């Protein structure tokens, strides 16, 4: 796996968009649903034994003889989970879809870590450890890059189970799945279901030239790299037209299905460079936003 290091310097002005409240485990600069220590006053409540005496509002006690403690809105960081599909189908295209997805994932991780968001990065279906690297500062970025560079496309696997194991049990404020979704209908529907159960899910759909403009000049026997299934397909202009029609319909159905599941669908095809995707496309899609810092 190759990582474009120069890219990350150009994206340092971005941060991950968080349309809702942050629930990260650490204090951050994002509004959280929790009340506690913070800068912005929220409410009073009666003192309970064990409360920090520094939170008691002594002025109120002096006027009203009531012991009340001050409550503040607590700012947390964002808990982002990035999941990269490393199954065999991601090893195709030029550039490889897995490299493309890795660059995107690393870029998003960098954006999140720069703003002290808690970022969890994991891969599934690939060759190598199915480890998950989690960090909340740039110190974890090297480990994430190492993980990405060690992963190679695998033979496939149960994407639904792998995704569930990485996101469903741990939660997260934003789950970003980078996948080509090239799996059978049942597996894909299950995967989308798991993703939809997450908070503010994002699907970065990674497709390459081998899917968008396949070589259909002549009849061939195509073999699925993951399942070994063989299909004899015709060639010629009419075949290309039929394929294009089907691809368009498939993508349209996928968008409709994601919309129905409230999954933020963003096409991240390899025809668009990771730089453009991070700086332009994902920003327009409100996956990232300009940094206010």
């Amino acid at each position: 796996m190759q990582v474009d290091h120069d890219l990350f310097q150009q994206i340092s002005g971005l941060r991950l968009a968080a349309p809702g409240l942050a629930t990260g485990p650490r204090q951050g600069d994002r509004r959280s649903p929790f009340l506690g220590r913070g800068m912005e006053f929220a409410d009073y409540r009666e003192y309970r034994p064990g409360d920090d005496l520094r939170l008691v509002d002594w002025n109120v006690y002096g006027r009203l003889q009531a012991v009340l403690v001050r409550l503040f809105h607590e700012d947390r960081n964002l808990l982002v989970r990035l999941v990269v599909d490393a199954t065999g189908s991601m090893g195709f295209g030029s550039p490889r879809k897995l490299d493309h997805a890795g660059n995107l994932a690393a870029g998003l991780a960098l954006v999140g870590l720069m703003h002290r968001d808690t970022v969890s990065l994991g891969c599934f279906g690939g060759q190598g450890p199915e480890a998950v690297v989690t960090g909340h500062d740039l110190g974890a970025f090297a480990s994430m890059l190492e993980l990405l560079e060690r992963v190679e496309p695998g033979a496939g696997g149960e994407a639904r189970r792998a995704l569930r194991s990485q996101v469903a049990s741990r939660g997260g404020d934003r789950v970003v799945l980078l996948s080509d979704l090239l799996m059978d209908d049942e597996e894909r529907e299950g995967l989308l279901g798991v993703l939809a159960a997450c908070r503010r899910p994002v699907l970065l759909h990674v497709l390459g030239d081998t899917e968008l403009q396949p070589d259909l000049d002549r009849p061939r026997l195509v073999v699925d790299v993951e399942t070994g299934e063989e299909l004899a397909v015709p060639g010629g202009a009419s075949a290309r037209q039929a394929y294009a029609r089907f691809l368009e319909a498939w993508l349209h159905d996928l968008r409709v299905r994601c919309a129905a599941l409230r999954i933020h669908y963003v096409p991240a095809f390899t025809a668009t460079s990771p730089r453009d995707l991070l700086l332009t496309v994902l920003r327009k899609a409100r996956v990232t936003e300009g940094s206010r810092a």
Partner: protein
Amino acid sequence: MTHPEALALVVLAVPVVLAYLLRRRLQRRVVSSVLLYRALSRERVASRRLEWPRHLLSLLAILGALAAVVVALSRRPEAGSTTWAVLLDSSASMGALLESGEQTRMEAALDELEGFLRSRPEDRVALISTSPARLQVGATGDPAQVLAVARALVPAGPGENELALQVVSSLCERAEPPTLLVLSHDIDPTGLGCPVHRGRLGPVGVNVGITALLVREADALGLAEIYLAVEGDRPGPARVELSVDGEVVQTVTMAGGERLLQLALPEGEVVSARLLGRDALAADDRAEASIRRGQRVRVALFTDRPDGFLASALGAHPRVDRAESGTEVDLLVLDGVVPEPMPTARRVVALGIDPTALGLSPGPRVRRPEVSRWEGEDPLLRYVDLEGLHIERSWVVSEPSGGLALVVSGAGPLSVRAPWRGRELAYFGFGTHESDLGLSIAFAHLVANLVEWAAPGPVDPGAPSSDGLLSPDETSPEELPGAGLPAAGAQLGWWSLALVALVLLVAEWVLRWREP
């Protein structure tokens, strides 16, 4: 096939079949997923049932195109024009009606010729007929002239096939021999130096024909012998009407084969035989034969027995004129006497004379020789039966060169016929008084034969005559097997086959490369 080398193209079928077999093995390609290809495959599943026959049709189309190209090349005309010699049978048998009854052999042959000429406007054509055997049109590039001359030919007379083939053979011996086209049912042109094509005229219907009519005088009293032969493939007896100068003499019923009739014919010149009933060929249903009447014969007899059998027989013969010595005669009869000087005569008969007196090879004179054989087929001994002949004494003579022993005994020839001093000599070693020949009917026949032998003029009334008869081959309705006209005739032309090949290739392209 004028281009046998085109067969070499057949080897192209091997790579075609190999390409077909290899093409069926699709190239494998590993893809990220077959998900997106499944739609194409679903469309293909509907046509997969037709996939194999479509492959096969594609292969058959290519092979068919290849075969068409091969045949087209084989039928492609040679560069430049070709010279043809058309041998058209114009004998009477070509007037036979074909089995269909709609046209004759000649009409069918002319149709074949017309189609042939139309298909080869660039070629040069010569026309040879068989009746008469003649080069009717030399090699010309004007097909209309050839066709006009051919149409002017009327089937008649016996075919002079051998002579016509000699004409063709002379053409075939040229530096650039023509290709021979035979339009006949019975001419066999094998052995010529030219390539040969035979037109098909078609079988004719049922036919019966007179194959022989021979007429000759049986005796001097007007009795005639008629030899009649009828052949054909119609079952049942045939009825033949005989007439003399148009006057019906007798109607004969024959169950095929031959028959010898003896009739007292009236005065007339020509005997006609007409086959009653209809058949395919009218030309052989009628035959004619001239009645040959013998001319008068002048005979000079030198004998030592003026009242003997010989003098009496000659005197009784109605066509014999006795001549005196010193005049020119037709027949000189020397019965034991050799006159000096010898009268002028074309034929001489000597009986019982020492052969040395005539200059013949001397031989012994034997007593009571037994005749062992005689030449019954010789005109002099026709109908002469020498069985049981008693001869008291006879000279034996050697058979001279150029002569023929007529009567032979155990001691040697007793009678010979040979050229002699510019004449024809018939020598008998025994005289009429030295045997009992004069007492038998054989003697009368012998005298009659001698008179006919000596009769002046070329006509031999004893020989049968017949006129204008067709040969049995021509009467036969059968046709020799033929290979048909050359390919450029009524068959598909080479360009047509090339067009077929092109259509097949287009069909194959549609089958293979326009499929969804």
